[in-house]
């Protein structure tokens, strides 16, 4: 089982080449840039499976444990696949006081997932996140990079419907 999880040969070769190019281009101490490399890897692969973590460890001459330690420490890194759209509901204080919990609940209801899990159709991952600093618009949620402000549970219906219809139009 462990062998299978850590089998690096299943990683996409083209994507690895992209990552290699990035690592090659780093000037100075490459190990010090581990967090930047992980950011890049997540950007390329979408998430950081354990075999990819091991690949990065070998590439930077670090132990796998060290890389895994860093990946699991920071909330920005995902070890599991994420949906095409990541819905982040801000749970900062300002949003909380203005009812962000109700917004989150509605999002979970509509997507049929639990927190940090991918929806059945593979479209959505729902997260609650720390203050994103748009407190003037509380409560706030983001879908990938798009920010939605002053969101009510009713608006959530509209937003989710929008992304579903975009998806259906593509098909």
């Amino acid at each position, binding site marked *: 089982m462990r062998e299978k999880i850590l089998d690096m040969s299943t990683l996409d070769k083209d994507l690895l080449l992209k990552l290699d190019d990035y690592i090659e281009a780093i000037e100075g101490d490459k*190990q010090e840039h*581990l967090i930047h490399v992980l*950011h890049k890897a997540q950007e390329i692969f979408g998430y950081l499976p354990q075999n990819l973590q091991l690949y990065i460890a070998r590439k930077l001459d670090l132990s796998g444990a060290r890389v895994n330690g860093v990946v699991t420490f*920071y909330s920005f890194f995902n070890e599991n696949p994420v949906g095409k759209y990541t819905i982040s509901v801000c749970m900062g*204080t300002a949003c909380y*006081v203005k009812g962000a919990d109700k917004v989150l609940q509605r999002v979970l209801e509509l997507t049929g997932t639990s927190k940090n899990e991918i929806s059945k159709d593979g479209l959505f991952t729902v997260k609650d996140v720390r*203050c994103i*600093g748009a*407190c003037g618009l509380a409560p706030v949620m983001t879908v990938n990079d798009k920010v939605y402000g002053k969101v009510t549970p009713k608006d959530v219906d509209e937003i989710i419907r929008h992304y579903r219809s975009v998806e259906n139009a593509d098909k």
Partner: protein
Amino acid sequence: MRINNFEDLKLWQKKCPRKTDYKINVLICMGTSCMSSDSEMIAILLEKTLKTRNVIAEVNVIKTGCFGFCGQGPIIKIEPDDITYVQVKVEDIEEIVDSHIINRTIVERLLYQDPHDTDAIKESSGMNFYRKQMRIALRNCGEINPENIEDYIVNDGYFALSKVLQEYTPEKVIEIIKKAGLRGRGGGGFYTGLKWEMTRRFPGDEKYVICNADEGDPGAFMDRSILEGDPHSILEAMMIAGYAMGAENGLIYIRAEYGIATKRLRIAIDQAKKAGLIGKNIFGTNFNFNIEIKLGAGAFVCGEETALIHSMEGFRGEPTKKPPFPSEAGFRGKPSSVNNVETFANIPAIILKGYEWFSAIGTKGSKGTKVFALAGQIRNNGLVEVPMGTTFREIVYDIGGGHPEGKNIKAIQIGGPSGGVITEEYFDTKIDYDSLISMGAMMGSGGMIIMDEETDMVKVAKFYLEFTQDESCGKCTPCRIGTKRMYEILDRLVKMEGKPEDLDKLKILGENIKNSSLCGLGQTAPNPVLSTMKYFPEEYEAYAYRTKKTTYTIDPKKCIGCTKCARNCPVSCITGTVKEPHYIDESKCIACGACYEACPVDAILKP
């Protein structure tokens, strides 16, 4: 243009386009808040409309950083007329162009309507929101295009660096900052000049100037706004710090969540490098300085300086014991000074205007201004910068406009998860570092969350503790296990499963965690609980003695028997006949609030 000596900068400033070159300047906010309400589209449309109306030559469109009036965005300001339009929509653009810009008639309906004034305020400077403010750190935010170095230079940008390199020795720079009395704006309030002096004194072949842009306090967004609205001022200040400390390297540690700020910083660094303002032999002197960006990856504890340094080195962001302080052994084990964004933003202004000017502002122990982020139950959400010593009442009521529906404001939470609450009896206290500490709160980074009479303080405390126990890095036991236990007690209380003894346990545990944790996160984590326990003991008791009302009830005197509540109740727990007072079965009520929303005569009482 490339700057090779001090004269070049002056020449460049003369050549830079100015606002006065144009008949009309239209400023559009491109801060995160306004951009999320389509200000980018508005800017595109505005330029298009100006072109089709053939007036583009006389009008200068400037995409600026944050105006601070975030709750009313997107915002457009027209100069020199000094008119601010709020909540502008894409559909309004043609009218603004045709009416205001071409026919010189103000579009009244888009002006901000102050609830305390019958007339809409026309001049921006006359708005209550801006009148009591004093902008030093935010001086260029909402005034210039942050992606254009020339806009910064026109406003005396890089002249502070030029002055320092020409006129002052490094020791003199440190003396100026010390005499100005500037204290760290990130939380602790340590004297900036002192930090620089210590870093200068410790020997090292390399030294580092580190900018802490890991703004993690929920409810605080001043650092993001400064980076988005005036990135060059941070670069300039870091170079001044580098000259003062004998450092040639600058690092900016920024949250990965701050995409726009990071992008603008990168643009600013590239522009400054091209202009020869970052690099070797700056202004033709022997001063060299380089600036790099380091991305964070979502960990609140990285705002603590030792944790931040470990994170920059590619490790888990766990704090280490001090001493040694970073000024002795910081990044890569070399002397480093970690300063906050807002602290840096003050530096160029202090150099250009002198320490006498700066130290004349504020109170005895806290000089200058402070930026506060107003959020929560307040009319004017946004960023405000006021002199130290301004009272809470002035900020919340005069600038913030009070509660949006005129309800009573019960408390202000200041300092984020490390701070505490301020109650109404203290609203007239002058705010500075020391007065806040004496009230059991702290300045923190300056987030102010306004809470009204309906806010449940126990739940607020639980909310903060959930945050800190989740963000605890796990290195030291008091913080890792202690905050978890405190959270469990609070959770028990809120579920009405607690006991009166729990209150003592909370207090003792809180005090112990404060005394024995390794870093600032743990040492301050119990503050939100301890301070709400101090000021709102009755709310805790109601939970501990299980006397707290948890269901909705109907006031029989007010109820008109319209049956709307009964029809909206999802669990059918409301009974009664038409035109007779209704009744809620408390054993069935799930406190969803549907009846409260439905009632036309406010007869439903909240728990």
